[in-house]
């Protein structure tokens, strides 16, 4: 059950998106998110959605995997859609049922929001998390944010924390599965009862999970010290980052796309 979580997991490959410089990808994702939020009419939303699909195709990651990851946020999307349908007022009243009034604008907004959420998740996961190894990602972040060290912001420490967090996601998921099975074997019932009872049934999972996580953290810290870790100072990296022509080409394409979306807004 828990193994199905693919959101935020790296999918190794050799596509153009995989080969982009992580530093560039961080800029690209920022531009892409801006583009998604700039879009405000049906044509630009269609383009945004199409761009998300194109990214999926470029990444050569099985679409099933990516859309499977969307299941996790299905309820958030549903919730946003429902809120938008019922709470948006406009000029074209479609249904009026007591105090519930549904406008055409509401339905439009709902569709836009869902498109926005889908593109945001698909786009950012394909552009960043699926195609960038977590180490490259944090490495890129560390290098992009390096100027902040001047302001005494512990950039290296943050990126190290992120790396470790990412490293331990599968380990802790496995552990959670094991604890759930152990508690089930002892008769804990996770699937029936009121919401409150089910929430309470989670306590026997959370407690051992936290205890073991702290234990692991302690051991990991000792192991890291034994491997001569002493913070970011004097540390070198195995991977050298170079910006290639492809990085600038993709940047140009994306900036052009942003331009197109902005001009759509002016036209329509």
């Amino acid at each position, binding site marked *: 059950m828990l193994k199905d979580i693919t959101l935020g997991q*790296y999918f190794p490959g050799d596509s153009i998106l995989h080969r982009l410089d992580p530093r560039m990808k961080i800029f690209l994702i920022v531009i892409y998110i801006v583009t998604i939020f700039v879009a405000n009419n049906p044509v630009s939303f269609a383009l945004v959605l199409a761009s998300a699909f194109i990214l999926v195709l470029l990444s050569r990651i099985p679409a099933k995997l990516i859309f499977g990851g969307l299941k996790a946020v299905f309820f958030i999307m549903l919730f946003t859609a429902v809120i938008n349908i019922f709470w948006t007022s406009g000029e074209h009243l479609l249904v009026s049922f007591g105090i519930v009034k549904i406008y055409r604008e509401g339905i439009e907004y709902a569709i836009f929001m869902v498109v926005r959420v889908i593109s945001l998740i698909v786009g950012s996961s394909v552009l960043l998390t699926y195609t960038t190894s977590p180490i490259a990602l944090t490495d890129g972040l560390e290098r992009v944010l390096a100027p902040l060290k001047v302001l005494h912001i512990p950039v290296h420490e943050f990126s190290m924390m992120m790396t470790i967090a990412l*490293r331990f996601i599968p380990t802790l998921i496995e552990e959670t599965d094991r604890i759930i099975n152990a508690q089930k074997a002892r008769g804990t019932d996770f699937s029936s009862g009121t919401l409150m009872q089910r929430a309470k049934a989670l306590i026997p999972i959370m407690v051992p999970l936290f205890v073991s996580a702290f234990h692991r953290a302690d051991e990991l810290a000792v192991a890291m010290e034994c*491997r001569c870790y002493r913070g970011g100072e004097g540390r070198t990296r195995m991977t050298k980052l170079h910006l290639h022509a492809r990085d600038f080409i993709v940047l140009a394409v994306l900036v052009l796309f942003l331009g197109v979306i902005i001009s759509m807004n002016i036209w329509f």
Partner: protein
Amino acid sequence: MNQNLIIEAKNLCFSYKNENGNHLPVLRDLTFSIERGSFVAILGHNGSGKSTLAKLLNLILTPDSGSLMVDGIDVTGELSEDDLYRLRRKVGMVFQNPDNQLVATIVEEDIAFGPENLGISPDEIRQRVDDALAAVNMTEFAKHSPSQLSGGQKQRIAIAGIIAMLPDCIIFDESTAMLDPIGRAEVMETIERLNREKGITVLLITHYMDEALRADRVIAMNQGEIYMDDTPRRVFSRVDELQKIGLDVPQVTQLAYRLATDGGMDIPTDILHSAEAVEALVKFYEKMTVGGDGK
């Protein structure tokens, strides 16, 4: 100071403090030395102090009294951070749980973690990572995620991460305890090869007798003291004494010992391998039948 010794301990003592502020002695008056390039197994029951000893050798803990020289440096005195750093590079450590030592999400990037901390050039790190992967026979897994590997493979990656720092000595702190039999065999084979081919000093802390058998020398510990310190053959022939401190001997050694003592058979008691036992029994049987013919 003897150049051939990588570790020299004299009258080493260490105690933990409990909540009441009382000192609980864990290591009492240990004196021993480890030669460069040797393969030493440290055996002991739970609570015998063997893991504490490992932590002292790796400078995670500092001794209460006594002297401890690691690679010619007295580590009991005030140590600068650079000394500490240098020593940790010389003496690597592989822990019990492979999951809790791997830092990165890609095998080769994890192995690079140590060398990266040493601040060497990217090209040399690459070279060292490739060599270390080859040394543990994991080259084909370079781009894998550790979570896709078996316990034995993860532990080999952890070993590679230490090898990449080019240490003189590696301490294995019950590194096979959490592995299945196949994983244990893989890791033991790797450890032996590192000792033989690369000349890395190995300190193997274990409670598996069959692992200790492969060492040149066995130190058996009991309640913070060295109980025996000899070749595996001589240590394991002292079956009764070992069992008294809660240690087992290899099954075949125990069988030979029982046959010789309880069974009154005339066979050696320092048998370590089943092939030796077969040979000894055949010899005994031949002697018996020859003797029987004479009657």
